[in-house]
């Protein structure tokens, strides 16, 4: 049983190896091979899941140590796996959604001559992501952590001939590296504090360490989470990441990778519980980001970017929940799973739309597509309802719980967080409605593409629709199923622990409030985009709109401060290296040369002057000897 965990990671890794080293001969069959390996890991996950269910609730954990990785003195890092309910949840999500998206990609990438490599990268991503969630120590987690970063780099920049794609990929990796810095420092802190960084000992004995240390660790972990999960202030890469093929956006930048931060924080719960200041930081980041992302989402006309903003915001919710401590962990994960379904579905829908509109991404050039791609319309619609939290659908349950928990934090803090969460819900309703309306309703605003031909939208092939349908089903029922007598809560509780917060406002009130803001959001959107025709070119818009279009000037800030500053720094350093460091040495050499040139002149060729020097020398010699005697 335990050995299967390793296999779980190895299977897709094998797939990646086969596909990437396989060479051209695999070009045709590549996609299916990749899908096969993904499916294999899904099957293994299923077996493991069954195995866990087979046990009773409190020892549903599997531990396996493959081999000792870095044994150096007191420093022991093993390649070991730890599978408990938390990781299992992720494993299922990853393998499930992953497999579906492999399937989807078979159709979506059918016409790309480099699709073999695409599937190789996808498999690589699966392997890394699975390693991330089943690792039993932080260093190994770090490996998966960077592994997914690499995969995302490769996939964002998959269409490398597009400079924008290459840049986006680079940006994503480097911003993530900043986060990784946090993670590695956190690990070092753990090592110096506990002498180890394996989950077991660290989390068990977290309380024994000083709070200051723990806060430091917590903040560093938060930094890491911000990088991976595109939270403020490291969120800037996610929007650009949409340069990647849509399946990638769906899998990596919606369903799985970006949620790794939530996993990290939940997993390290024990540390955060003992470091309230760190928790405050977490919730702050979460709250800020959920509004930030929502606002950005409202302004974007590029369908994927709009969804990206939404993703950011939704993850903000999760982080917020995770920051609340035991009250929130479960709901963070729950929202994470449901979000995995509907957001993946939405992206796949978007992809399908683009597929039909020859890769047009500007929603202002869509319109009235519901007739042309019914399946897409239906699945997308269900995802839409789920995300805005339409009663009875997944989003409703998960998000509602989070808002409750936020209020339950208590005190002004609780009110602020709860308020933010509610506001976020309203905005979510607004921008998702906007997306919906712009895409599927209203009149056609299609424009000829660069080749000058009007798009003729059509429903996507079966390989693409089936995953969409499955995900749609998931996004409809998942939340409900989880909530039936708190099955999900019970499932996770042994790992994350759970505390019932007593909210100042009753659950019912919260639900009602949520409904109200939801309606308001939808109504405004309808007023703006449903009733009157939409201009094909975006109006100049208000100051906020314009700022939001540019990700609230985040990038401009980065550009001015970091990029420009960095350029100046490096350029001046190059100068320093050349003129100062090198100059000193060359200067010395030159001065010796000059001295030599001058002393050379003494050798003027006149025998008598030589005699003079000898005479003088003799005089000095005598004088010196006498002097020596004198002193």
């Amino acid at each position, binding site marked *: 049983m335990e050995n299967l965990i390793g296999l779980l990671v190895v299977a897709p890794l094998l797939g990646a190896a086969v596909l990437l080293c396989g060479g051209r001969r695999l070009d045709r069959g590549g996609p299916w091979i990749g899908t096969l390996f993904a499916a294999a890991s899904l099957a293994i996950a299923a077996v493991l899941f069954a195995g866990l269910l087979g046990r009773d609730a409190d020892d549903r954990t599997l531990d396996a140590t493959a*081999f000792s990785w870095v044994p150096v003195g007191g420093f022991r890092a093993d390649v070991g796996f730890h599978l408990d309910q938390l990781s299992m949840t992720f494993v299922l999500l990853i393998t499930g959604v992953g497999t579906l998206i492999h399937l989807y990609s078979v159709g979506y990438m059918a016409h790309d001559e480099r699709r073999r490599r695409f599937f190789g990268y996808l498999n690589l991503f699966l392997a890394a992501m699975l390693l991330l969630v089943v690792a039993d120590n932080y260093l190994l987690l770090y490996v998966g952590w960077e592994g997914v970063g690499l995969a995302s780099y490769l996939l964002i920049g998959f269409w490398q001939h597009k400079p924008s794609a290459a840049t986006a990929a680079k940006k994503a990796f480097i911003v993530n590296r900043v986060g990784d810095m946090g993670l590695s420092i956190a690990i070092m802190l753990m090592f110096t504090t506990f002498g180890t960084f*394996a989950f077991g000992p660290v989390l068990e004995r977290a309380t024994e360490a000083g709070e200051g240390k723990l806060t430091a660790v917590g903040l560093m972990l938060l930094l890491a989470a911000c990088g991976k999960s595109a939270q403020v202030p490291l969120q800037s890469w996610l929007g650009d990441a949409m340069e990647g093929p849509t399946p990638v956006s769906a899998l990596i930048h919606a369903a799985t990778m970006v949620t790794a931060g939530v996993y990290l924080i939940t997993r390290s719960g024990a540390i955060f519980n003992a470091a309230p200041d760190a928790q405050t930081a977490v919730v702050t980041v979460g709250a800020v980001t959920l509004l930030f992302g929502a606002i950005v989402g409202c302004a974007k006309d590029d369908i994927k970017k709009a969804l990206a903003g939404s993703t950011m915001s939704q993850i903000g919710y999760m982080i917020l929940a995770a920051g609340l401590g035991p009250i929130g962990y479960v709901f963070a994960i729950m929202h994470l799973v449901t979000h995995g379904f509907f957001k993946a579905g939405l992206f796949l829908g978007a992809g399908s739309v683009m597929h039909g509109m020859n890769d047009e991404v500007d929603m202002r050039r869509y319109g009235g597509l519901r007739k042309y791609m019914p399946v897409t319309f239906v699945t997308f619609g269900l995802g839409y309802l789920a995300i805005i939290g339409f009663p009875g659908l997944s989003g409703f349950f998960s998000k509602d719980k989070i808002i409750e928990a936020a209020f339950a934090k208590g005190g002004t803090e609780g009110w602020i967080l709860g308020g933010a969460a509610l506001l976020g819900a309203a905005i979510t309703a607004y921008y998702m409605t906007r997306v919906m309306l712009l895409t599927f309703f209203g009149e056609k605003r299609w424009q000829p593409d660069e080749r000058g031909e009007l798009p003729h939208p059509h429903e996507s092939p079966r390989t693409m629709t089936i995953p969409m349908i499955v995900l749609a089903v998931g996004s409809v029922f998942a939340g409900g199923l989880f909530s039936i007598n708190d099955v999900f809560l019970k499932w996770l509780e042994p790992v994350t622990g759970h505390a019932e917060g007593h909210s100042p406002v009753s659950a019912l009130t919260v639900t009602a409030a949520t409904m109200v803001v939801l309606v308001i959001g939808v109504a405004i959107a309808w007023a703006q985009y449903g009733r009157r025709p939409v201009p094909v070119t975006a109006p100049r818009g208000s100051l906020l709109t314009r700022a939001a279009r540019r990700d609230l000037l985040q990038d401009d800030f980065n550009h001015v401060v970091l990029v420009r500053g960095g350029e100046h720094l490096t350029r001046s350093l190059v100068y320093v290296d050349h003129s100062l460091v090198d100059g000193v040495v060359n200067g010395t050499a030159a001065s010796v040369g000059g001295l030599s040139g001058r002393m050379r002149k003494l050798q003027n060729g006149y025998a008598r002057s030589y005699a003079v020097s000898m005479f003088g020398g003799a005089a000095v010699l005598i004088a010196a000897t006498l002097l020596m005697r004198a002193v």
Partner: protein
Amino acid sequence: MSFPLLTLTAAVPAVGAVATAAVPAGRRTAAKWLALAVSLATLVLAAVQLVRFDPDAKGPFQLTESHAWIKDFGVRYELGVDGIAVVLIALAALLIPFIMLAGWHDADPQESGSSRWRPTQGFFALILMVEAMVVISFEATDVFLFYIFFEAMLIPMYFLIGGFGDRAGERTEGGAAAQRSYAAVKFLLYNLVGGLIMLAAVIGLYAVTADQLGTGTFSLQEIVQARAAGKLDLATTTERALFLGFFFAFAVKAPLWPLHTWLPNAMGEATAPVAVLITAVVDKVGTFAMLRFCLQLFPEASKWATPVIVVLSLISILYGALLAVGQRDIKRLVAYASISHFGFIVLGIFAMTSQGQSGATLYMVNHGISTAALMLVAGFLISRRGSRLIADYGGVQKVAPVLAGTFLVGGLATLSLPGLAPFVSEFLVLVGTFSRYPVAGAVATLGIVLAALYVLVLYQRTMTGPVKEEVRGMPDLRARELAVVAPLIALLLFLGIYPKPVTQILDPAVRHTMSQVHKADPKPDVNDVEAAK
């Protein structure tokens, strides 16, 4: 003891060098194959060393040989390897064949000059000569013996850099590659000056030992034991002066900021294989010597100097990385990256923790392999386009995917991506430093961000984007080139996933060094975690 394995390992390439040089002008290819065969034989011998070496044996050195040499100078021909040495020897022996293979056509004479002018033979003979000297300086346990080859090594290196630089007419930052001999001279003078300053210290060491032990000696073990027994005790100032003398030479070789400026010139002007020889093989002698001689001969002074050295290496790390970002010449970029990495190595050595030092030693190995991979692929790329300027490339990935792929892997290794070998060592260094100097450790961590920056910028500018006109029709890696790169990459992966075989050889040696400097690892705040586990 009976069979002089160590001597043989050094002698084979030396003899091979002479033989190669003797091959008549017409038989160029024969000379190449001969040299390659010799290097492979050396590799075999190095492997035998690894096998014969017993990590858990008592005593600092194994396979020792000891013969009288220059009695008047107190010099003995003393060889012996510890875990660190044996691994580094293996590294050198491993890289040389690849270097030769990569430089297979670098030394083919363009115009047939005088019949006696035999560049090819010279090129390969010199490489073998360098190998021999590197090997023996890893093996030497006599300070003087080490010094001799540490210095003599410069001469063949000098000719390799100055004599076989990049083809003329190649586009470089400074125009035509005319600064080659400047680079060679710079390399030689920097290292020569370092060596001479070390010479003064060596003489000083002799004077001290002769003064206190009656007969002057250079034997590392003798001196160490004498100090342990209290028979030899250096005045604080003396020890510090001697330490500085030694360290200066090694810091030039390593190279440590601000003594680094020779490296970019040398690596830029030399052919890629020679550049690899410099940074991956020869420079390792410097860092190795810090561990073996600076720390073991002058433990107190080492501790005294640690703060300064830590700061210097931090500067090297960040400075090198930032300059790498600022480079417009591919090879110079790699050179500055190496400076940054050497900063890590020195940092690890002087963090005085077992993690730091194991990390540093492991780093030497990994950096050798990763730089070799990156630099050699870069060399293949440059040889195709005839330019070192990053700006002259673009979209290579489209026309030569395999080249681009291997280049990327090399790059990822350079930015020490987890799963590839350098990550392990870099992280060990960081942890080791952090546990003693948290601030330094944290600052050093910035290096990993900058590394990502310069590697990915390089990759983006050269490999991605629309295909440049000059790049169109560029051939992908040939079989020979692939045979060079593939094994290196495989090795990077293997050592990244399973470094244990190497670490378990290094570990005892590192522990010994730590005991020499009387330093113990700092204890974690929360103790007996292991017990609780």
